[in-house]
Protein backbone atom coordinates (compact mmCIF):
# COMPACT_ATOMS: atom_id res chain seq x y z
CA UNK A 1 0.00 0.00 0.00
CA UNK A 2 2.77 2.39 0.92
CA UNK A 3 4.43 1.48 -2.36
CA UNK A 4 1.26 2.28 -4.28
CA UNK A 5 0.78 5.66 -2.64
CA UNK A 6 4.41 6.69 -3.13
CA UNK A 7 4.37 5.26 -6.64
CA UNK A 8 1.35 7.35 -7.60
CA UNK A 9 3.06 10.55 -6.51
CA UNK A 10 6.28 9.57 -8.26
CA UNK A 11 4.25 8.81 -11.37
CA UNK A 12 3.82 12.55 -11.80
CA UNK A 13 7.60 13.02 -11.79
CA UNK A 14 7.93 10.04 -14.12
CA UNK A 15 5.64 11.68 -16.69
CA UNK A 16 7.83 14.77 -16.51
CA UNK A 17 10.92 12.67 -17.16
CA UNK A 18 9.12 10.87 -19.97
CA UNK A 19 8.34 14.16 -21.73
CA UNK A 20 11.99 15.16 -21.90
CA UNK A 21 13.63 11.77 -22.23
CA UNK A 22 11.28 10.03 -24.65
CA UNK A 23 9.34 12.81 -26.37
CA UNK A 24 12.09 15.45 -26.71
CA UNK A 25 14.99 12.95 -26.64
CA UNK A 26 16.80 15.02 -24.02
CA UNK A 27 18.14 13.69 -20.72
CA UNK A 28 17.19 16.64 -18.54
CA UNK A 29 18.92 16.78 -15.15
CA UNK A 30 17.01 19.90 -14.13
CA UNK A 31 14.59 17.40 -12.59
CA UNK A 32 16.90 16.83 -9.62
CA UNK A 33 16.52 20.47 -8.72
CA UNK A 34 12.93 21.10 -9.70
CA UNK A 35 11.61 18.29 -7.48
CA UNK A 36 13.03 20.21 -4.54
CA UNK A 37 11.85 23.55 -5.92
CA UNK A 38 8.33 22.19 -5.99
CA UNK A 39 8.64 20.85 -2.45
CA UNK A 40 10.29 24.04 -1.18
CA UNK A 41 7.70 26.37 -2.66
CA UNK A 42 4.85 24.23 -1.34
CA UNK A 43 6.40 24.02 2.13
CA UNK A 44 7.08 27.72 2.45
CA UNK A 45 3.70 28.84 1.11
CA UNK A 46 1.74 26.35 3.22
CA UNK A 47 3.57 27.33 6.41
CA UNK A 48 2.80 30.95 5.57
CA UNK A 49 -0.88 30.04 5.57
CA UNK A 50 -1.69 29.66 1.88
CA UNK A 51 -4.20 27.10 0.70
CA UNK A 52 -2.26 23.85 0.03
CA UNK A 53 -3.82 23.45 -3.43
CA UNK A 54 -2.80 26.96 -4.32
CA UNK A 55 0.67 26.03 -3.03
CA UNK A 56 0.80 23.18 -5.56
CA UNK A 57 -0.04 25.66 -8.31
CA UNK A 58 2.80 27.93 -7.15
CA UNK A 59 5.12 24.91 -7.21
CA UNK A 60 4.08 24.17 -10.77
CA UNK A 61 5.08 27.64 -11.89
CA UNK A 62 8.36 27.35 -10.02
CA UNK A 63 9.15 24.18 -11.98
CA UNK A 64 8.05 25.84 -15.22
CA UNK A 65 10.55 28.62 -14.51
CA UNK A 66 13.33 26.09 -13.93
CA UNK A 67 12.51 24.42 -17.24
CA UNK A 68 12.51 27.78 -18.96
CA UNK A 69 16.05 28.50 -17.73
CA UNK A 70 17.36 25.15 -18.95
CA UNK A 71 15.57 25.68 -22.26
CA UNK A 72 17.08 29.12 -22.77
CA UNK A 73 20.57 27.88 -21.88
CA UNK A 74 20.21 25.07 -24.37
CA UNK A 75 18.50 26.79 -27.30
CA UNK A 76 19.58 30.42 -27.15
CA UNK A 77 23.05 30.00 -25.65
CA UNK A 78 23.68 26.71 -27.48
CA UNK A 79 24.90 24.88 -24.38
CA UNK A 80 24.49 21.09 -24.78
CA UNK A 81 21.24 19.92 -23.21
CA UNK A 82 22.87 17.69 -20.60
CA UNK A 83 25.11 20.51 -19.39
CA UNK A 84 22.25 23.02 -19.43
CA UNK A 85 20.31 20.73 -17.12
CA UNK A 86 23.29 20.31 -14.81
CA UNK A 87 23.82 24.07 -14.63
CA UNK A 88 20.20 24.72 -13.70
CA UNK A 89 20.26 21.85 -11.23
CA UNK A 90 23.29 23.29 -9.42
CA UNK A 91 21.86 26.79 -9.49
CA UNK A 92 18.59 25.48 -8.09
CA UNK A 93 20.40 24.02 -5.07
CA UNK A 94 21.19 27.54 -3.89
CA UNK A 95 17.84 28.90 -4.97
CA UNK A 96 15.95 26.15 -3.16
CA UNK A 97 17.93 26.87 0.01
CA UNK A 98 16.99 30.52 -0.33
CA UNK A 99 13.33 29.64 -0.82
CA UNK A 100 13.27 27.45 2.27
CA UNK A 101 15.67 29.56 4.31
CA UNK A 102 17.15 26.37 5.78
CA UNK A 103 17.88 22.79 4.75
CA UNK A 104 14.49 21.41 5.71
CA UNK A 105 11.03 22.48 6.72
CA UNK A 106 8.64 20.39 8.74
CA UNK A 107 4.97 20.26 7.72
CA UNK A 108 3.72 18.49 10.84
CA UNK A 109 0.37 19.61 12.25
CA UNK A 110 -0.36 21.80 9.24
CA UNK A 111 -3.19 21.41 6.75
CA UNK A 112 -2.00 19.79 3.52
CA UNK A 113 -3.76 18.81 0.30
CA UNK A 114 -4.54 15.51 2.00
CA UNK A 115 -6.31 17.02 5.00
CA UNK A 116 -9.65 17.26 3.17
CA UNK A 117 -9.68 13.49 2.73
CA UNK A 118 -8.28 12.73 6.17
CA UNK A 119 -11.10 14.79 7.71
CA UNK A 120 -13.64 12.37 6.26
CA UNK A 121 -12.06 9.68 8.41
CA UNK A 122 -9.75 8.10 5.83
CA UNK A 123 -6.26 6.98 6.83
CA UNK A 124 -3.48 9.24 5.66
CA UNK A 125 -2.22 6.57 3.27
CA UNK A 126 -5.63 6.15 1.65
CA UNK A 127 -5.90 9.91 1.36
CA UNK A 128 -2.63 9.99 -0.55
CA UNK A 129 -3.80 7.22 -2.83
CA UNK A 130 -7.11 8.91 -3.58
CA UNK A 131 -5.56 12.28 -4.22
CA UNK A 132 -2.79 10.61 -6.23
CA UNK A 133 -5.32 8.85 -8.44
CA UNK A 134 -7.22 12.11 -9.00
CA UNK A 135 -4.06 14.02 -9.92
CA UNK A 136 -2.62 11.28 -12.10
CA UNK A 137 -5.96 10.74 -13.82
CA UNK A 138 -6.34 14.42 -14.67
CA UNK A 139 -2.71 14.55 -15.75
CA UNK A 140 -3.07 11.65 -18.18
CA UNK A 141 -6.22 13.22 -19.62
CA UNK A 142 -4.61 16.63 -20.06
CA UNK A 143 -1.39 15.26 -21.54
CA UNK A 144 -3.27 13.00 -23.90
CA UNK A 145 -5.22 15.99 -25.14
CA UNK A 146 -2.23 18.34 -25.24
CA UNK A 147 0.08 16.08 -27.22
CA UNK A 148 -2.71 15.59 -29.74
CA UNK A 149 -3.00 19.33 -30.42
CA UNK A 150 -1.07 21.22 -33.07
CA UNK A 151 1.50 22.48 -30.59
CA UNK A 152 1.74 19.08 -28.90
CA UNK A 153 2.34 17.35 -32.24
CA UNK A 154 5.04 19.89 -33.03
CA UNK A 155 6.78 19.08 -29.74
CA UNK A 156 6.60 15.36 -30.42
CA UNK A 157 7.99 15.83 -33.93
CA UNK A 158 10.85 17.95 -32.57
CA UNK A 159 12.13 15.01 -30.55
CA UNK A 160 11.90 12.77 -33.58
CA UNK A 161 13.42 15.00 -36.31
CA UNK A 162 14.15 18.67 -35.54
CA UNK A 163 15.47 19.34 -39.07
CA UNK A 164 12.17 18.29 -40.58
CA UNK A 165 10.23 20.29 -38.01
CA UNK A 166 12.05 23.49 -38.99
CA UNK A 167 11.40 22.72 -42.65
CA UNK A 168 7.70 22.63 -41.75
CA UNK A 169 7.89 26.15 -40.37
CA UNK A 170 8.10 25.35 -36.67
CA UNK A 171 10.52 27.12 -34.34
CA UNK A 172 12.26 24.19 -32.65
CA UNK A 173 13.67 26.46 -29.95
CA UNK A 174 10.13 27.22 -28.86
CA UNK A 175 9.01 23.61 -28.87
CA UNK A 176 12.06 22.47 -26.88
CA UNK A 177 11.63 25.22 -24.29
CA UNK A 178 7.92 24.47 -24.02
CA UNK A 179 8.58 20.77 -23.50
CA UNK A 180 11.16 21.47 -20.79
CA UNK A 181 8.81 23.90 -19.05
CA UNK A 182 5.91 21.46 -18.98
CA UNK A 183 8.16 18.61 -17.86
CA UNK A 184 9.69 20.51 -14.95
CA UNK A 185 6.33 21.99 -13.99
CA UNK A 186 4.99 18.44 -13.56
CA UNK A 187 8.10 17.37 -11.66
CA UNK A 188 7.62 20.28 -9.27
CA UNK A 189 3.98 19.27 -8.70
CA UNK A 190 5.28 15.81 -7.83
CA UNK A 191 7.77 17.34 -5.42
CA UNK A 192 5.06 19.44 -3.77
CA UNK A 193 2.76 16.45 -3.27
CA UNK A 194 5.56 14.22 -1.97
CA UNK A 195 6.70 16.84 0.54
CA UNK A 196 3.15 17.14 1.84
CA UNK A 197 2.67 13.39 2.14
CA UNK A 198 5.95 12.87 4.02
CA UNK A 199 5.28 16.09 5.94
CA UNK A 200 8.62 17.69 5.36
CA UNK A 201 10.59 19.32 2.58
CA UNK A 202 14.30 18.62 2.40
CA UNK A 203 17.07 20.08 0.25
CA UNK A 204 18.39 16.55 -0.45
CA UNK A 205 15.11 15.02 -1.58
CA UNK A 206 15.82 15.44 -5.29
CA UNK A 207 18.97 13.35 -5.41
CA UNK A 208 18.62 10.48 -7.84
CA UNK A 209 15.15 11.53 -8.99
CA UNK A 210 16.19 11.53 -12.66
CA UNK A 211 17.36 7.93 -12.34
CA UNK A 212 14.23 6.88 -10.46
CA UNK A 213 12.16 8.57 -13.16
CA UNK A 214 14.08 6.79 -15.93
CA UNK A 215 13.79 3.46 -14.12
CA UNK A 216 10.03 3.92 -13.89
CA UNK A 217 9.76 4.90 -17.57
CA UNK A 218 11.70 1.83 -18.62
CA UNK A 219 9.91 -0.58 -16.29
CA UNK A 220 6.61 0.73 -17.63
CA UNK A 221 7.69 0.24 -21.23
CA UNK A 222 9.12 -3.23 -20.66
CA UNK A 223 6.19 -4.56 -18.67
CA UNK A 224 3.25 -2.82 -20.24
CA UNK A 225 4.34 -2.26 -23.81
CA UNK A 226 4.17 0.95 -25.76
CA UNK A 227 1.37 0.67 -28.23
CA UNK A 228 -0.50 3.96 -28.44
CA UNK A 229 0.00 7.18 -26.54
CA UNK A 230 -2.74 6.61 -23.97
CA UNK A 231 -1.38 3.20 -23.02
CA UNK A 232 2.12 4.65 -22.82
CA UNK A 233 0.97 7.27 -20.35
CA UNK A 234 -0.75 4.61 -18.31
CA UNK A 235 2.37 2.43 -18.42
CA UNK A 236 4.34 5.29 -16.84
CA UNK A 237 2.07 5.25 -13.82
CA UNK A 238 2.24 1.48 -13.53
CA UNK A 239 6.02 1.66 -14.02
CA UNK A 240 6.38 4.13 -11.14
CA UNK A 241 4.27 1.94 -8.87
CA UNK A 242 6.10 -1.25 -9.82
CA UNK A 243 9.40 0.49 -9.15
CA UNK A 244 8.23 1.29 -5.60
CA UNK A 245 7.06 -2.28 -5.10
CA UNK A 246 10.44 -3.60 -6.26
CA UNK A 247 12.21 -1.25 -3.86
CA UNK A 248 9.95 -2.32 -1.00
CA UNK A 249 10.69 -5.96 -1.81
CA UNK A 250 14.48 -5.64 -1.92
CA UNK A 251 14.38 -3.70 1.32
CA UNK A 252 12.36 -6.46 2.91
CA UNK A 253 14.85 -9.00 1.55
CA UNK A 254 17.46 -7.23 3.64
CA UNK A 255 19.19 -4.76 1.32
CA UNK A 256 20.54 -1.85 3.37
CA UNK A 257 18.64 1.35 2.54
CA UNK A 258 21.93 3.10 1.82
CA UNK A 259 22.53 0.83 -1.17
CA UNK A 260 19.21 1.70 -2.83
CA UNK A 261 20.59 4.34 -5.15
CA UNK A 262 23.36 2.01 -6.28
CA UNK A 263 20.77 -0.68 -6.93
CA UNK A 264 18.58 1.71 -8.96
CA UNK A 265 21.51 3.02 -10.98
CA UNK A 266 22.65 -0.50 -11.86
CA UNK A 267 19.12 -1.51 -12.83
CA UNK A 268 18.76 1.49 -15.13
CA UNK A 269 22.22 0.94 -16.63
CA UNK A 270 21.31 -2.65 -17.45
CA UNK A 271 17.93 -1.67 -18.87
CA UNK A 272 19.43 1.07 -21.06
CA UNK A 273 22.12 -1.26 -22.38
CA UNK A 274 19.71 -4.04 -23.31
CA UNK A 275 19.76 -3.07 -27.01
CA UNK A 276 23.57 -3.46 -27.03
CA UNK A 277 23.36 -6.93 -25.53
CA UNK A 278 20.65 -7.79 -27.97
CA UNK A 279 22.85 -6.77 -30.90
CA UNK A 280 25.60 -9.06 -29.57
CA UNK A 281 23.20 -11.90 -29.05
CA UNK A 282 21.42 -11.57 -32.38
CA UNK A 283 24.30 -12.87 -34.61
CA UNK A 284 24.94 -15.59 -32.06
CA UNK A 285 21.34 -16.70 -32.18
CA UNK A 286 21.31 -16.64 -35.96
CA UNK A 287 24.46 -18.71 -36.23
CA UNK A 288 23.05 -21.22 -33.80
CA UNK A 289 19.96 -21.45 -35.96
CA UNK A 290 21.99 -21.86 -39.12
CA UNK A 291 24.04 -24.68 -37.62
CA UNK A 292 20.96 -26.62 -36.71
Amino acid at each position, binding site marked *: MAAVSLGLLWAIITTGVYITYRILSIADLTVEGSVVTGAAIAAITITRGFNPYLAVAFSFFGGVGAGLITGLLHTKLKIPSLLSGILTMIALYSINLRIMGKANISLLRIDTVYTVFENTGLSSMLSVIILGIIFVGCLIGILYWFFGTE*IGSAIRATGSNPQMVRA*QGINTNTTIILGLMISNGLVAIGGALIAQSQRFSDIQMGIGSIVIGLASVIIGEVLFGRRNFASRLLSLVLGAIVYRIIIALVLRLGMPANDLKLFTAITVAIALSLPVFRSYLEPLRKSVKRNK
Partner: protein
Amino acid sequence: MLRVSRIIKIFNARTINEKVALHNVSFKLEKGDFATLIGGNGSGKSTLLNCIAGVYPADRGSIFIDGKDMTKLCEYRRAAFLGRVFQDPMMGTASDMGIEENLALALRRGKIRGLRWGITNKEREHYKKLLKDLGLGLEARLGTKVGLLSGGQRQALTLLMATIKRPKLLLLDEHAAALDPRTAKKVMKLTDRIIEEENLTTLMVTHNMRDAIKHGNRLMMMYEGRIILDIKGREKQKLTVEDLLERFEDISGEEFADDRTLLSQ
Protein backbone atom coordinates in the same frame (compact mmCIF):
# COMPACT_ATOMS: atom_id res chain seq x y z
CA MET B 1 10.06 34.40 -58.24
CA LEU B 2 13.48 33.61 -56.78
CA ARG B 3 16.26 36.16 -56.92
CA VAL B 4 19.66 35.21 -55.54
CA SER B 5 22.21 37.97 -55.74
CA ARG B 6 25.91 37.86 -54.99
CA ILE B 7 25.76 35.16 -52.37
CA ILE B 8 29.03 34.37 -50.68
CA LYS B 9 29.35 31.51 -48.22
CA ILE B 10 32.60 30.75 -46.44
CA PHE B 11 32.89 27.81 -44.07
CA ASN B 12 35.37 27.95 -41.19
CA ALA B 13 36.43 31.50 -42.08
CA ARG B 14 39.88 32.55 -40.96
CA THR B 15 41.06 29.04 -40.09
CA ILE B 16 43.26 26.65 -42.00
CA ASN B 17 40.10 24.81 -43.01
CA GLU B 18 38.62 27.90 -44.64
CA LYS B 19 36.46 26.91 -47.58
CA VAL B 20 34.73 29.33 -49.90
CA ALA B 21 31.73 27.22 -50.86
CA LEU B 22 29.85 29.92 -52.80
CA HIS B 23 31.61 32.66 -54.80
CA ASN B 24 29.31 35.52 -55.61
CA VAL B 25 26.48 33.36 -56.89
CA SER B 26 23.67 35.24 -58.65
CA PHE B 27 20.69 33.98 -60.64
CA LYS B 28 16.96 34.38 -61.03
CA LEU B 29 14.18 31.86 -61.44
CA GLU B 30 11.03 33.01 -63.20
CA LYS B 31 7.61 31.89 -62.01
CA GLY B 32 7.02 28.33 -63.20
CA ASP B 33 10.68 27.66 -63.97
CA PHE B 34 11.88 24.12 -63.32
CA ALA B 35 15.66 24.36 -63.15
CA THR B 36 18.00 21.43 -62.67
CA LEU B 37 21.31 22.05 -60.95
CA ILE B 38 24.26 19.79 -61.66
CA GLY B 39 27.91 19.80 -60.65
CA GLY B 40 30.70 17.69 -59.20
CA ASN B 41 31.16 16.71 -55.56
CA GLY B 42 31.73 19.71 -53.35
CA SER B 43 30.87 22.24 -56.05
CA GLY B 44 28.44 23.94 -53.68
CA LYS B 45 25.00 22.73 -54.80
CA SER B 46 23.74 21.73 -51.36
CA THR B 47 25.28 24.83 -49.83
CA LEU B 48 23.34 26.97 -52.29
CA LEU B 49 20.06 25.25 -51.45
CA ASN B 50 20.78 25.47 -47.73
CA CYS B 51 21.47 29.20 -48.03
CA ILE B 52 18.19 29.69 -49.86
CA ALA B 53 16.33 27.67 -47.21
CA GLY B 54 18.10 29.49 -44.41
CA VAL B 55 19.66 26.40 -42.81
CA TYR B 56 22.62 28.73 -42.27
CA PRO B 57 22.95 32.41 -43.19
CA ALA B 58 24.96 33.49 -46.22
CA ASP B 59 28.00 35.64 -45.41
CA ARG B 60 27.06 38.19 -48.02
CA GLY B 61 24.42 38.75 -50.67
CA SER B 62 20.65 38.65 -50.62
CA ILE B 63 17.81 36.28 -51.38
CA PHE B 64 14.33 37.35 -52.47
CA ILE B 65 11.37 35.02 -52.94
CA ASP B 66 8.36 36.49 -54.68
CA GLY B 67 9.64 39.99 -53.96
CA LYS B 68 10.09 39.33 -50.24
CA ASP B 69 13.50 39.70 -48.67
CA MET B 70 14.44 36.39 -47.07
CA THR B 71 18.03 37.26 -46.27
CA LYS B 72 17.52 37.91 -42.58
CA LEU B 73 14.71 35.44 -41.91
CA CYS B 74 15.56 32.27 -40.02
CA GLU B 75 14.93 28.82 -41.38
CA TYR B 76 11.52 28.15 -39.87
CA ARG B 77 10.14 31.46 -41.10
CA ARG B 78 11.32 30.89 -44.66
CA ALA B 79 9.67 27.48 -44.54
CA ALA B 80 6.31 29.15 -45.11
CA PHE B 81 7.40 29.87 -48.70
CA LEU B 82 9.33 26.68 -49.38
CA GLY B 83 8.89 22.98 -49.94
CA ARG B 84 11.98 20.85 -49.45
CA VAL B 85 12.99 17.26 -50.09
CA PHE B 86 16.40 16.02 -49.01
CA GLN B 87 18.77 13.34 -50.26
CA ASP B 88 18.46 11.30 -47.10
CA PRO B 89 14.98 9.71 -46.93
CA MET B 90 15.21 9.93 -43.12
CA MET B 91 15.53 13.72 -43.16
CA GLY B 92 12.15 14.77 -44.46
CA THR B 93 9.79 12.96 -42.11
CA ALA B 94 9.39 12.25 -38.39
CA SER B 95 9.86 8.50 -38.21
CA ASP B 96 8.20 8.04 -34.81
CA MET B 97 4.98 9.57 -36.07
CA GLY B 98 2.26 8.28 -38.35
CA ILE B 99 1.81 9.08 -42.04
CA GLU B 100 -1.22 11.27 -41.35
CA GLU B 101 0.55 13.04 -38.47
CA ASN B 102 3.44 13.95 -40.76
CA LEU B 103 1.05 15.25 -43.41
CA ALA B 104 -0.82 17.24 -40.75
CA LEU B 105 2.43 18.91 -39.69
CA ALA B 106 3.09 19.86 -43.30
CA LEU B 107 -0.44 21.13 -43.93
CA ARG B 108 0.04 23.67 -41.12
CA ARG B 109 3.26 25.05 -42.56
CA GLY B 110 3.20 28.83 -42.38
CA LYS B 111 0.23 28.88 -39.99
CA ILE B 112 0.28 29.65 -36.30
CA ARG B 113 -0.12 26.43 -34.36
CA GLY B 114 -2.46 26.53 -31.42
CA LEU B 115 -4.40 24.21 -29.17
CA ARG B 116 -6.70 22.97 -31.89
CA TRP B 117 -6.66 19.23 -32.52
CA GLY B 118 -3.58 18.21 -34.53
CA ILE B 119 -5.55 16.38 -37.24
CA THR B 120 -9.19 16.79 -38.23
CA ASN B 121 -11.38 14.17 -39.86
CA LYS B 122 -11.94 16.39 -42.87
CA GLU B 123 -8.21 16.49 -43.46
CA ARG B 124 -8.02 12.71 -43.29
CA GLU B 125 -10.21 12.41 -46.37
CA HIS B 126 -7.99 14.88 -48.16
CA TYR B 127 -4.87 12.87 -47.22
CA LYS B 128 -6.47 9.64 -48.38
CA LYS B 129 -7.12 11.16 -51.76
CA LEU B 130 -3.62 12.56 -52.10
CA LEU B 131 -2.01 9.29 -51.00
CA LYS B 132 -4.18 7.35 -53.41
CA ASP B 133 -2.83 9.50 -56.24
CA LEU B 134 0.68 8.37 -55.29
CA GLY B 135 -0.35 4.83 -56.14
CA LEU B 136 1.71 3.22 -53.37
CA GLY B 137 -1.17 1.89 -51.30
CA LEU B 138 -0.39 4.27 -48.45
CA GLU B 139 -3.98 5.52 -48.28
CA ALA B 140 -4.91 2.41 -46.30
CA ARG B 141 -2.10 2.95 -43.80
CA LEU B 142 -2.72 6.48 -42.50
CA GLY B 143 -1.71 5.55 -38.96
CA THR B 144 1.45 3.59 -39.86
CA LYS B 145 4.67 4.97 -38.38
CA VAL B 146 6.75 6.51 -41.15
CA GLY B 147 9.82 4.69 -39.80
CA LEU B 148 8.33 1.46 -41.15
CA LEU B 149 8.15 2.73 -44.76
CA SER B 150 10.74 2.03 -47.46
CA GLY B 151 13.06 4.79 -48.67
CA GLY B 152 11.05 5.30 -51.84
CA GLN B 153 7.77 5.50 -49.94
CA ARG B 154 9.28 8.01 -47.56
CA GLN B 155 10.58 10.20 -50.39
CA ALA B 156 7.18 10.11 -52.09
CA LEU B 157 5.57 11.12 -48.79
CA THR B 158 8.14 13.88 -48.24
CA LEU B 159 7.43 15.16 -51.74
CA LEU B 160 3.73 15.20 -50.93
CA MET B 161 4.44 17.07 -47.69
CA ALA B 162 6.66 19.57 -49.48
CA THR B 163 3.96 20.37 -52.01
CA ILE B 164 0.78 20.00 -49.95
CA LYS B 165 0.75 23.74 -49.20
CA ARG B 166 1.74 24.78 -52.73
CA PRO B 167 5.13 26.35 -51.96
CA LYS B 168 6.38 29.41 -53.83
CA LEU B 169 9.58 27.49 -54.42
CA LEU B 170 10.32 23.78 -54.33
CA LEU B 171 13.89 22.78 -53.42
CA LEU B 172 14.95 19.22 -54.20
CA ASP B 173 18.45 18.12 -53.19
CA GLU B 174 19.25 14.84 -54.97
CA HIS B 175 16.03 13.47 -53.58
CA ALA B 176 16.18 10.31 -55.71
CA ALA B 177 19.91 9.63 -55.31
CA ALA B 178 19.64 7.28 -52.33
CA LEU B 179 17.05 5.05 -54.01
CA ASP B 180 17.50 2.02 -56.24
CA PRO B 181 17.20 2.83 -59.97
CA ARG B 182 13.65 1.59 -60.37
CA THR B 183 12.34 3.44 -57.34
CA ALA B 184 14.34 6.52 -58.31
CA LYS B 185 12.62 6.52 -61.68
CA LYS B 186 9.20 6.29 -60.03
CA VAL B 187 9.99 9.14 -57.67
CA MET B 188 11.26 11.29 -60.55
CA LYS B 189 8.09 10.61 -62.50
CA LEU B 190 6.02 11.60 -59.52
CA THR B 191 8.12 14.75 -59.12
CA ASP B 192 7.48 15.72 -62.73
CA ARG B 193 3.77 15.13 -62.38
CA ILE B 194 3.35 17.18 -59.20
CA ILE B 195 5.46 20.05 -60.52
CA GLU B 196 3.46 20.15 -63.72
CA GLU B 197 0.04 19.84 -62.10
CA GLU B 198 0.76 22.56 -59.56
CA ASN B 199 2.95 24.59 -61.91
CA LEU B 200 5.63 24.88 -59.19
CA THR B 201 8.79 26.93 -59.45
CA THR B 202 11.48 24.36 -58.74
CA LEU B 203 15.22 24.08 -58.20
CA MET B 204 16.35 20.45 -58.37
CA VAL B 205 19.86 19.26 -57.64
CA THR B 206 20.81 16.03 -59.34
CA HIS B 207 23.94 14.03 -59.97
CA ASN B 208 22.48 12.35 -62.96
CA MET B 209 23.26 14.19 -66.22
CA ARG B 210 20.48 12.41 -68.06
CA ASP B 211 17.96 13.49 -65.43
CA ALA B 212 19.28 17.04 -65.50
CA ILE B 213 18.75 17.17 -69.24
CA LYS B 214 15.47 15.29 -69.35
CA HIS B 215 13.67 17.25 -66.64
CA GLY B 216 12.80 20.91 -66.41
CA ASN B 217 13.11 23.86 -68.73
CA ARG B 218 16.46 25.06 -67.55
CA LEU B 219 19.84 23.61 -66.57
CA MET B 220 22.50 25.20 -64.42
CA MET B 221 25.93 23.78 -63.71
CA MET B 222 28.12 24.62 -60.74
CA TYR B 223 31.86 24.39 -60.46
CA GLU B 224 33.92 25.40 -57.44
CA GLY B 225 31.22 27.54 -55.92
CA ARG B 226 30.21 29.31 -59.13
CA ILE B 227 27.42 28.83 -61.64
CA ILE B 228 29.33 28.27 -64.88
CA LEU B 229 26.51 27.26 -67.18
CA ASP B 230 22.89 28.35 -67.45
CA ILE B 231 21.05 26.83 -70.39
CA LYS B 232 17.42 27.66 -71.09
CA GLY B 233 14.58 27.21 -73.53
CA ARG B 234 15.13 25.60 -76.93
CA GLU B 235 18.83 25.21 -76.32
CA LYS B 236 18.07 23.14 -73.23
CA GLN B 237 15.65 20.94 -75.16
CA LYS B 238 18.30 20.01 -77.72
CA LEU B 239 21.04 19.42 -75.15
CA THR B 240 22.85 16.06 -75.01
CA VAL B 241 25.23 14.60 -72.44
CA GLU B 242 28.13 15.00 -74.89
CA ASP B 243 27.34 18.71 -75.39
CA LEU B 244 27.25 19.20 -71.69
CA LEU B 245 30.59 17.49 -71.06
CA GLU B 246 32.21 19.46 -73.88
CA ARG B 247 30.93 22.78 -72.64
CA PHE B 248 32.06 21.97 -69.14
CA GLU B 249 35.60 21.26 -70.35
CA ASP B 250 35.67 24.48 -72.39
CA ILE B 251 34.79 26.61 -69.42
CA SER B 252 36.59 24.91 -66.58
CA GLY B 253 39.64 23.84 -68.57
CA GLU B 254 39.49 20.35 -67.11
CA GLU B 255 37.70 17.09 -67.71
CA PHE B 256 34.49 16.48 -65.92
CA ALA B 257 35.73 14.12 -63.26
CA ASP B 258 32.98 13.11 -60.97
CA ASP B 259 32.61 9.40 -60.68
CA ARG B 260 29.05 9.44 -59.49
CA THR B 261 27.89 11.70 -62.29
CA LEU B 262 29.71 9.79 -65.01
CA LEU B 263 28.64 6.41 -63.77
CA SER B 264 25.04 7.45 -63.61
CA GLN B 265 24.86 8.56 -67.22
